[in-house]
């Protein structure tokens, strides 16, 4: 019943809304700001009194030092993350396809049982996991970590692909079945060509999750030379207790790939967030 005309009250409300939004934006940017400026300072300039001030000049030595420390681990993370993300997306695309288009008696129940896996606190399987990997000689190996990420990726990727394929009318696949198109035929000629967005979303999701993983990395691959980047950053913080410039530079390096990917592919990331939010 309000008149849509201009009023001060509306103006004030709008202003207040923007102020709140800006304040939160600053809040969310604050840690990154501190991380970057501290990383750009030389050690002598990392003083507790001047934490919030900009560095006096562009000083990249901390980044160089941190990079020297974590570069091999950065490489490890690439070697772990890229294949894990690709393989688990591929597995997920098949599983999602089966769960949505090739239902059989009990398939929904199996799907539900898969979903439970998303809730699994890794601590609940940590000891058997270590024992099993050891028995198969995969413990402490990059391949072991890739293997584990692929397995623990099964539930979420199945969920994401299933909901995507669900959106493709069954008539389409049924018709193909009638036409004698087989299991792989339908997958290859009907679903794959239109699944690119789903693949992008899932790949991105898996990439972020696996890159950011710490717990599985520290359990399975704690050898400092083989450890993934987040384990290395944690170790860096333990080794340079007072050199915050190096800690911050290292942390920023670790965060960079996912931040860049997010900024470039924000839309897909958003869809991943929604798709990954558990809803069937």
């Amino acid at each position: 019943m309000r008149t849509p005309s201009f009023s001060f009250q509306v103006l004030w409300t709008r202003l207040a809304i923007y102020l709140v939004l800006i304040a939160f934006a600053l809040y969310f940017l604050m840690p990154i700001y501190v991380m970057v400026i501290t990383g750009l300072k030389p050690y002598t300039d990392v003083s507790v009194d001047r934490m919030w001030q900009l560095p006096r000049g562009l000083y990249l030595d901390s980044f160089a030092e941190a990079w020297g420390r974590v570069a091999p681990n950065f490489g490890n993370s690439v070697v772990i993350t890229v294949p894990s993300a690709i393989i688990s997306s591929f597995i997920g695309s098949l599983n999602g396809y089966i769960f949505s288009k090739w239902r059989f008696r009990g398939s929904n129940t199996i799907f539900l049982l898969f979903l439970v896996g998303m809730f699994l606190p890794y601590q609940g399987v940590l000891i058997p996991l270590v024992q099993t990997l050891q028995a198969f000689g995969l413990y402490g190996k990059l391949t072991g970590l890739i293997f584990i990420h692929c397995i623990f990726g099964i539930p979420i990727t199945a969920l994401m692909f299933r909901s995507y394929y669900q959106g493709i009318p069954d008539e389409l696949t049924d018709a193909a079945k009638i036409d004698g198109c087989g299991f792989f035929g339908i997958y290859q000629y009907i679903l794959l060509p239109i699944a690119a967005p789903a693949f992008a979303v899932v790949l991105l999701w898996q990439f972020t999750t696996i890159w950011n993983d710490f717990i599985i990395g520290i359990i399975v691959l704690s050898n400092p030379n083989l450890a993934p980047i987040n384990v290395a950053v944690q170790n860096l913080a333990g080794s340079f207790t007072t050199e915050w410039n190096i800690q911050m530079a290292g942390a920023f390096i670790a965060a960079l790939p996912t931040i860049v990917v997010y900024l470039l592919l924000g839309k897909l990331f958003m869809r991943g967030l929604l798709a990954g939010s558990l809803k069937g």
Partner: protein
Amino acid sequence: MASAQTRLSQAAARKRKWHINRDLLLAIVVLTPSIIAVAVFIYSFIGWTFWISTVNWNDALPDYTFVGLKNWLTIFKGTRFQTDLRNLVMYATGFMTQCIVIGFLLAALLDQRIRGEAIFRTIYIFPFAVSAIVTGVAWRWLMRPDTGLNLLLEQVGLGFLKSRWFSDPTWGMLFITIASSWQFTGYIMALYLAGLRGIPGEIKEAAQMDGCNTWNLYRHVIIPMVAPVTFTAIVLTGMGAIRLFDIVAAMSGSGQAFSTDTLAFHMFEQTFTANRFSISAVLGAFMIILSAFLVIPYLRSVRREIY
């Protein structure tokens, strides 16, 4: 003639059916490795953990003598475990409240036809792309008592708010939630935003026609309508609370007088520092039991959509 045709088409149909059955079989075959993987790496491992929690493997060398609930009693009687539970409640409360309240608030504000919405949204969500370790390392620096937030507070004349943050031996855990909800709120906001966008405009208009003010509109119409999102948010943040490990490992470890200890961190120490595998299996098993409280309502809610 006609019957021959029928017979022919019947044969063709049978052939097609056979195809479909064969393909269905193929589908099951393709699915099987995943089923086995999940069965082994999730379900049997859970059972395995429960079994280890009942044996006497509390030293470097495995000892599979059955001891019943002895390890469970040891843990339950231990003051550290009791502190962990207290910390879990404190963390879950603080973390859920911040994520859900701030997440909803930001979503509701962004839903007001905001200029530059995409920029705000991008900024709010990006912490979710940052790992918990990085988050923890950055916040540990921010929460150093002699600088960081304390310095900032002092400079803006709010010196009385200065705190020991996560090194407080009683309230440390609440300050950990600040760091973790910094990382997670954007995600919850995105969920709410999607939920709000899904509410048809007519409903809001209708409510306003009825003389509903903004407050009542949200209270009686919108918040109930996004209840499914709230449910999801509770499940997600609850899972985060049960599993909490990374951020604590990066920030404070078990903290002063265990004030930031968590079940997961306790378990990690029992396993890798103390080599008490059966005792740590109790903690792992307990975490699984706790998650069941979230899994079961969740499964109920998805079931309807799936079947």
